[in-house]
């Protein structure tokens, strides 16, 4: 296993230490150890079934919602173990937002979709403040212009790409520090994908982003660091440029050149 040193002088935001995950008896992840830099895009690549989504779900404890799933090891965010007994996963998830593979807007209005997080966490003390948060989030997700006249329409009436950006707006409405994205573009057409990728470039100025992708080109385009997973193991981790130009391991090379996958 290869662990890259801190690239440049960026601060470490998330630190995964010996993380193993079991679904009942099956080990889905095996001693994953690496660090994720703050305000950078880190992409997780690897053949399907290798545990990318599982790893991503460890970072906001979404695995807790799966009964048979057990996580061992430590995940430190800002040097605090999020699996420590005193950590409330509900509060943690407000700090670590998530965007899913298939856009999943709630069957509510566009406005209410974005207002969902702020209102359950009591982030806004007045209606104006709530509206302010919603509009800023929509702006940041690059969706505001398209939906400003139809905020009361249901979120499911938007196109796939717009729905996905609505989900991003929903996630950033609670001002998270980290945004997890699990193949956010796999259900989108190339144009919608390009728009979301641009958005990621923009968001990384304020957020730490971890993105799972099955597209090597996408990983190359949007991420600064890349982790390559294979069969539950972290094979290689390093700067995206280095992984794609001079991979250290044969499996990585094979995957990148399309021999496995």
């Amino acid at each position, binding site marked *: 296993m290869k662990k890259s040193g801190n690239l440049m002088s960026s601060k470490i935001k998330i630190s995964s230490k010996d993380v193993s995950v079991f679904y009942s008896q099956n080990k889905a992840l095996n001693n994953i150890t690496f660090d994720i830099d703050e305000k950078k895009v880190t992409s997780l690549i690897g053949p399907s079934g290798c545990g990318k989504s599982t790893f991503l779900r460890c970072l*906001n404890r*979404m695995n807790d*919602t799966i009964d048979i799933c057990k996580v061992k090891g430590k995940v430190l965010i800002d040097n605090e173990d999020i699996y420590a007994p005193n950590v409330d996963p*509900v*509060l*943690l*998830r*407000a700090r670590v*937002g*998530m965007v*899913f593979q*298939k856009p*999943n*807007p*709630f*069957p*509510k209005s566009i406005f209410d979709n974005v207002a*969902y*997080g702020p209102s*359950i*966490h009591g982030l806004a003390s007045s209606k104006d403040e709530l509206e302010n948060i919603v509009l800023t989030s929509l702006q940041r997700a690059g969706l505001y212009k398209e939906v400003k006249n139809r905020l009361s329409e249901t979120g*499911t009436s938007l196109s796939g790409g717009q729905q996905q950006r609505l*989900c991003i707006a*929903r*996630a950033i409405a*609670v001002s998270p520090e980290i945004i997890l994205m699990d193949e956010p573009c796999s259900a989108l057409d190339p144009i919608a994908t390009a728009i979301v990728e641009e958005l990621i470039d923009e968001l990384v100025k304020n957020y730490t982003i971890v993105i799972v992708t099955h597209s090597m080109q996408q990983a190359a385009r949007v991420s600064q660091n890349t982790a390559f997973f294979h069969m539950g193991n972290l094979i290689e981790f390093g700067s995206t440029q280095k992984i794609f130009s001079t991979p250290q391991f044969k499996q990585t090379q094979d995957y990148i050149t399309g021999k496995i996958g």
Partner: protein
Amino acid sequence: MGFWSFSVFILIIAISAYWYGNTKALRLNSNSIEKLPSLPKYYGNYALIWLIFPCLLGVFLWITLNTYILDTILINHLPKELENSFAGGINMLVDRVKTINIDNPFPGTNPELIDAAIFLENKSNEVRAYFLWGIISISVLLCFVSLKKISFKFKARQAVEKSNVTLLILCSIVAIITTVGIVFSLIFEAMRFFDQVSIFDFLFGLSWSPQMAIREDQVASQGSFGAIPLFTGTLLITLIAMLVAIPVGLASAIYLAEYSSSTTRSIIKPLLEILAGVPTVVYGFFAAITVGPFFREFADFFGFNIASESAIAAGGVMGIMIIPFISSLSDDVISAVPQSLRDGSYAMGATHSETIKRVVLPAALPGIVGAILLAVSRAIGETMIVVMAAGIAANLTSNPFEAVTTVTVQIVTLLVGDQEFDSAKTLAAFALGITLFCMTLFLNLYALKIVQRYRERYE
């Protein structure tokens, strides 16, 4: 020729027709390079269909026409004097002849009648034989033609599939025609009722006492047919039932769909569904014997005096009866809400209960409303519990502790016992029936529309 020998005969022809079609197709296939467009068995099936369909049709015709034909023959045969001497007219006479046991006639029976009966028996055998032979010759002919058709140009599979579809359509038409027939007979009888009682009095009258006088000079010789007390009674009981069933049913649906482990669920869900299968008369028993007296004693304790037959007892038990209905349907609806929506909510830092309240239930709401409306129309149509627990007194009241009655109960009480079929009292049942039918029909249509809209959203 009897019916059984006919059946066996047809069966034998059927088997040989199938066998012949199949073999002929196989032979054609093996004797030439060209192949038949369908598998051999379809050629056998095709011949079979042309045998069976005409047979069924023929038997159906025979059953419907048989009585009519025989009656006509008998009437023409009976001597005029006999007809005139028989009190009750020709129809009674025909019925009388039919009831005679020709092997062992009742001593003292008019010999002319016995002769007529023997004649009828012979004719009936004759007509049956004509019919059966007719059926056999026509269907065998058709079957034969269809066997002749086997050639390289004939696509038997398409033909067989087409006739399968025809069969399915026919079956569904039977259900539709029956329903339409019922509705029309309801409308027809209701019209006769409205000839005697004005529709305005019926729909807006406040008093319901359909007891027609036995003698002309009796007090209240004219019954009154104001249906309002019945409909308010129905509404009151339905309302009470829903007040019980909706909260409890929904809560148990939420528990089942969201909280229970899969083992608990696999035990509770079938149990609930069994509960839905308990005959309503058993619930009615429970309402009358246990719940009604309970409410009366309860009220006694506080110094009130209420009847042991009360709307609240009937409504309460009906509510319990409907709980499994609502909870089972709502559970399906809630479980059908995509997991991705729940995940989305959890990922926002929502708790389980916030997720249920703010995402799952709103998403499932149309389906839940549909379930509730279906339950309402079931409550409206329920009879047994009300007969047993709420009584038959048509009180116009909104007090749940008084006895009330419902539309369905009145229909039953109007129709039981010896009734003339054209008295206003009996016909009133049809008027009530058609009104009730319209109400539940619209309710169901509305419910289905809502459920439909819900389906569209996630597909």
